[in-house]
């Protein structure tokens, strides 16, 4: 969970990497109790470009609501994996096509990692743009793209996402620490557990201390909606 800013600050202080209550926000009381600005490396990497080409030229790039460019990282499931930089506003489908599509036919892509969004091909027309994506309930997250092959087991993927969530949960708040573990156990009980898992996801989203527990339910719920009972098959397969 140390990508979460308050957990990151705790880890930098040499303490357990746990999320802290907000407020106080790090900008008011952060590292060693002092006001702290936490920026993503990906944000700062834009600064040289802005200085080089000038703010007006930089702002001319991208879409109305998301200026500039975004780095996307395509995993090995695409024909041409790697990191690409695209102007905001570029349709996701164009990014996927430019990478040669999936190495094998794809059922979906997981955009933005385990706290992002699961997108089936019918949603790939969405532009890479925070505003346009937010309108459709899509989270761009860190901009990673993981290819989900057509023959992937939805149940395996569901268990993988829940295991990741349980492993990364810091243990401080009850909904996330205990909810991820409980949902992981329920995912092995077959389709009858669907309603109980849905309730836990809602609890985590509503009540968790930090963005990790609040966002982890997103792709899990999308997986359950997209693949139905197949995501809760008792035999998850390979």
């Amino acid at each position, binding site marked *: 969970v140390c990508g979460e800013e308050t957990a990151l600050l705790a880890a930098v202080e040499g303490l357990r990497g746990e999320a802290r209550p*907000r407020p106080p926000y790090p900008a008011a009381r952060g590292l060693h109790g002092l006001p702290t600005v936490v920026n993503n490396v990906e944000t700062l990497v834009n600064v040289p470009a802005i200085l080089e080409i000038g703010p007006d030229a930089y702002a001319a790039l991208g879409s109305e609501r998301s200026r500039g460019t975004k780095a996307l990282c395509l995993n090995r499931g695409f024909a041409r994996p790697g990191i690409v930089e695209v102007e905001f506003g570029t349709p996701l489908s164009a990014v996927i096509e430019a990478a040669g599509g999936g190495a094998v036919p794809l059922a979906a892509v997981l955009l933005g990692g385990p706290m992002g969004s699961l997108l089936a091909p019918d949603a790939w027309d969405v532009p890479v743009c925070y505003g346009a994506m937010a309108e459709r309930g899509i989270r761009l997250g860190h901009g990673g793209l993981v290819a989900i092959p057509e023959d992937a087991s939805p149940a395996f993927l569901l268990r993988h996402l829940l295991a990741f969530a349980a492993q990364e949960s810091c*243990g401080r708040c009850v*909904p996330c620490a*205990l909810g991820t573990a409980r949902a992981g156990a329920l995912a092995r009980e077959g389709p009858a557990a669907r309603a109980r898992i849905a309730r836990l996801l809602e*609890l985590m989203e509503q009540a968790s201390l930090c963005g990790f527990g609040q966002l982890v339910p997103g792709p899990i719920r999308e997986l359950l909606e997209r693949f139905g009972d197949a995501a809760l098959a008792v035999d998850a397969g390979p």
Partner: protein
Amino acid sequence: VSAALAWIDGRAVAVRDGETILAAARRAGIAIPALCAADGLAAEGGCRLCLVEVEGAARPLAACHTPIRAEQIVRTATPALERIRREILELLADERPFRPNPRGVEYAGLLARHGVAARPSAAGEVDATHPYLRFDPSLCIVCRRCVHACDEIQGQSVFDVAGRGAATRLLYGPSERFAESPCTACGACGG
């Protein structure tokens, strides 16, 4: 000059600078459940039982670490909040040990009030190495009040937690024996 007011469950509460919603509510005699928060200790923000609805906020906010503000309209016991509390208590009751005991009346009372049945745990191995303090892990729900009390009142930092996620558990001293920890038997932890 009239004092700035906030409204908690329809009741006018004077706003004091730096006070949390939880503290202001308690001062006004409005009970908000909380297992990790305790008077005089820094907010842990872990149990999430003190979530309240604040008008204009996109999601429920934890009363223990949200400052009270003038004109704020707070609701502490809506059906949605009560459902969240019941589900949190169900998780705790399922995943953490429980046995009726004199120190656990607050927790037992919350479970009972929300209609959550606890499954009693078996007695664990008790650390009785210290002349005044005993630690029974089979009664610990990892609320961490003791961690805060020892850090903030006595400054001994005897307690910490180990493990992550659901496996997080209380830790004390280098050998997990009170007799060998820096504990001074002050009793601030509730021991």
